[in-house]
C-alpha cells in the first residue's frame, strides 16, 4: 500500500503538467494577440513571436479611429443587445408553453423549432438574400436583426424547455393556491429559477450575434449596418495584411464579449446550487 502512494502522486503530477500545457496552448493565442497588438508592423514581420521591444498603442488608435471601428461596434452592439432581449423573451414564453401545457401539435411545434438547429447557415444565404431583396428588406438598419433572432431561437428554446420541465410543477401549483396568476408565477417564480439557463442563453446569443459574419456580409451593403467581423476584414489587403492593426482591433472586439461573459458567468454557478424543492 505504501509503495503505491508515491506513484499516485507522480501520476497526479503528470496529469497536472499535461493539463497545464494544454491550458497554456489554449490561452497562448490570446496572450499572443494582445502583446503583438503593441508591436509595429515591421517588428512583427521580422519576428512574429518575440515580445515587443517598445510597446506602443498606435495600432489601437489606427484601428479605432482610422479603421472606423466605432461604426461596427455600434452596429454589432445594437444587434446583439436587441437579439439577446428578444430571444430571451420569446424563447422563455415558448419554452414555458411547450413544457407546461399539453396541446395538439405540441410535439410538431417543438420539432419545428429544433429542426432549425440542423440547417447550415451557408445553405440559407442565397434563398434568404432573394427573399429580402423581393420584400424590400435588403440593406435597412433592421435587416440583420430579423434573421439573427430567428436563427438564434432554437437552442434557447431547447435549453429552457428541458430546464423548465426539470422544475417541479408543485411550485406552480403552490403559487396558484396562494392566488398568483399564470403571468405572475411565470415571471416572478419561474424566471428567477431559470436564471442559470438564461445566463447561458445571454452569453451564447450575445457571442454568436456579436461575431456573426455571413448574413452581415451578404444582406447589407451600407458600412454602418455591418457587424464587427465584416469590419475586421478591412484590415486584410488583396496581397498584404496589416496584422498588428488587425490584432489591436481583435483585442478591442473581444472586450465586450468578455464583459458579458464575466457579468453573467456567476449566475450559472449560483443556479447550480439553488433550488426550492430538493431530494
Amino acid at each position, binding site marked *: 500500500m505504501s509503495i503505491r502512494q508515491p506513484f499516485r502522486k507522480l501520476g497526479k503530477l503528470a496529469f497536472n503538467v499535461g493539463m497545464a500545457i494544454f491550458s497554456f496552448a489554449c490561452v497562448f493565442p490570446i496572450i499572443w494577440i494582445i502583446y503583438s497588438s503593441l508591436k509595429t508592423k515591421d517588428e512583427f514581420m*521580422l519576428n512574429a513571436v518575440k515580445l515587443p521591444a517598445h510597446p506602443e498603442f498606435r495600432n489601437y488608435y489606427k484601428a479605432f479611429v482610422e*479603421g*472606423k471601428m466605432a461604426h461596427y461596434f455600434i452596429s454589432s452592439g445594437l444587434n446583439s443587445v436587441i437579439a439577446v432581449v428578444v430571444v430571451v423573451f420569446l424563447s422563455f414564453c415558448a419554452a414555458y408553453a411547450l413544457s407546461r401545457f399539453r396541446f395538439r401539435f405540441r410535439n410538431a411545434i417543438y420539432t419545428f423549432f429544433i429542426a432549425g438547429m440542423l440547417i447550415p447557415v451557408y445553405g440559407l444565404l*442565397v434563398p434568404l*438574400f432573394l427573399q429580402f431583396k423581393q420584400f424590400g428588406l435588403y440593406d435597412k438598419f433592421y435587416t440583420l436583426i430579423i434573421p439573427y433572432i430567428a436563427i438564434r431561437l432554437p437552442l434557447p428554446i431547447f435549453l429552457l424547455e428541458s430546464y423548465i420541465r426539470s422544475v417541479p410543477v408543485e411550485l406552480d401549483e403552490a403559487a396558484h393556491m396562494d392566488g398568483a396568476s399564470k403571468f405572475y408565477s411565470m415571471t416572478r417564480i419561474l424566471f428567477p429559477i431559470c436564471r442559470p439557463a438564461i445566463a447561458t442563453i445571454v452569453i451564447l446569443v450575445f457571442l454568436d450575434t456579436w461575431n456573426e459574419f455571413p448574413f452581415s456580409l451578404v444582406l447589407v451593403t451600407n458600412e454602418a449596418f455591418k457587424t464587427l467581423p465584416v469590419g475586421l476584414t478591412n484590415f486584410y489587403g488583396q496581397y498584404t495584411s496589416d496584422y498588428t492593426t488587425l490584432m489591436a482591433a481583435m483585442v478591442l472586439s473581444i472586450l465586450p464579449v468578455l464583459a458579458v461573459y464575466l457579468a453573467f458567468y456567476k449566475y450559472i454557478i449560483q443556479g447550480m446550487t439553488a433550488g426550492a424543492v430538493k431530494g
Partner: protein
Amino acid sequence: MKANRVKMTGLSVALAVGMSVLAGCGGDNNNSNNTAPSNSANPEVNASSEPSASAQEPVKVTFMNMWPKDSTENIATTVRAELAKFQADHPNIIVEEESIGDQNAYYTKLKTLAASNELPDIFISKGSELAMFAKNETVAPLDDLLSADADWKNGFLPSSFNDLSSGGHTYGVPFSMLATSVIYYNKQFFADAGFSSFPQTWAELETAIAKIKENGITPIALGNKEQWVAESCILSALGDRFTGTDWFTSINDKSGAKFTDADFVNSLEAFQSLAKQGAFNKDMNSINNDQQKTLYFNGKAAMFMEGSWAIGSVMAAPKEIADNTEVAVLPSVEGGKGNAMATSGGAGSGYAVGVKGYGEKKDAIAKVLKALSGEGFAKSMAEKGEPVAFTVTDYDKSNVSPLAVKYAELSSQLQFTPIYDSYLNPALVSVMNAGLQDLLINGVTPEALAKKIQAEYEKTN
C-alpha cells in the same frame, strides 16, 4: 358589390402579373395622360418625363471592390483619387462603392449575388470566376463597349485581356498586369557562392543552390501552407519552360494535350529534385507566403519566388536586405520548349459588369470604367511603381522605388504565359495544389501525380 369584387380581383391579378408589366403599363399611362389633361398641367408632366429631366436625375452606378476605404495600397489610393476626380467632373453619375477586404468573404458575397442575378454594375473578379459568371449569363460581354472606343481598347497591352475572356467574348477590363512568378534574390548571397549574376541555365541554378546551402543559408524560402504558392508562383512558370505555351493552350481547349505528357512530368520532376536537393526550408508546408518573405527578410534565405505584388513589401524590408535584392525569372531548362524570357502572369483580375445594370446604364458604366482603367489611371499607377495593363510611355519615375524600376525593365522584355489557376477549373487546381505539397515532401512520384491530375482533368471534361 359584385362589380367591386370583380375590380378587386382584377387589381390583384394585375399585381400578381409582376413589376415588369406594371412598369410597362405605367409608361403607357403617362403618355396617354399627357394628351388628356388641360394645357396648364402639361408642362409639369413633361418636366418629369422628358429626357432633359432624366439628365438631372443622377445615375447610380454600384461598384464592388476588394479595396477597403482606409487601405494604403497603391491600387486602392489611385482608384479612390480617380473616382473623386470623376465625381467632380460627372455630377450626374454617382458611384456607390462597397468594399470587402477579405478575398474569401468577397467571393462568397459575389457568388451569392450572382446566384440571384443581382451582381453590381461594376465589380472586380478573377478570370476563372468570370468564366463561370459568363456561363450563367450574369455578366455582360464588353466587346461592344470596348470597340466603341478604339483608343481606349488599343491602349491595353495585347495579352492583358486573355485572362478575362471566355468563349470568344471579353468580360472584363484589366487594371493591372501582374507576373505571378518573379524570383527575388539577394545578390550578396549569390556573390558569396561565386555567382556575380543570376544563373542562366537550370544546371547553373542547381550548382548555385548547392553552394548557397553549403554556406549555411536556405537557398529558396517557400511558404506553401495555403497551397497556391508552389503552383501559381513556381510551377506555372517552370511548367511553361518545359512544355511551351502551346501545350497549355491545348490543355485549356481540351484539344489533345495531357498532364501525363513527358514535358509536364519533367517539370514536376525538376521541381521535386529541387526539394530533394534541400533547396527549400523544411517547414515549407506549414508556413504561408508572408512567412516565406520573413525568412528572406531575416537574411536566412537567398531567394523567394512570388508575384510582382511583393515588390512593395521587399522595399519595406530592412535596408540591408532591400538594397541587395534583385529580380529575375527562372533560367532556361535543357530541352525545354518554352521561351526563357517569359514568366507566368496576366491581368488576373479585371472590372466586370453585371448584366442587370448594363442594359439601362451602359453609358455611365462605360465612363466609370474608362476613368478607372484608362491612361490617366495607368499613368498615376505607373508613377507609384505599380505594373499596369495600359501602355504609358512617359511618366515621372522619380517616386518609383529602385526595385520597381528594375522590375519594370525586366518585365518589358518578358512574355507573359498563362497562370495555371486562373484558367483551370477550381476542382482540378485543388488536386494539383494538394499534390504539389505531397510532391515536395517526396510523398508522391512525379509520374503518379501527373496521372492523378490527368484523371481529375478527364473527369471534368
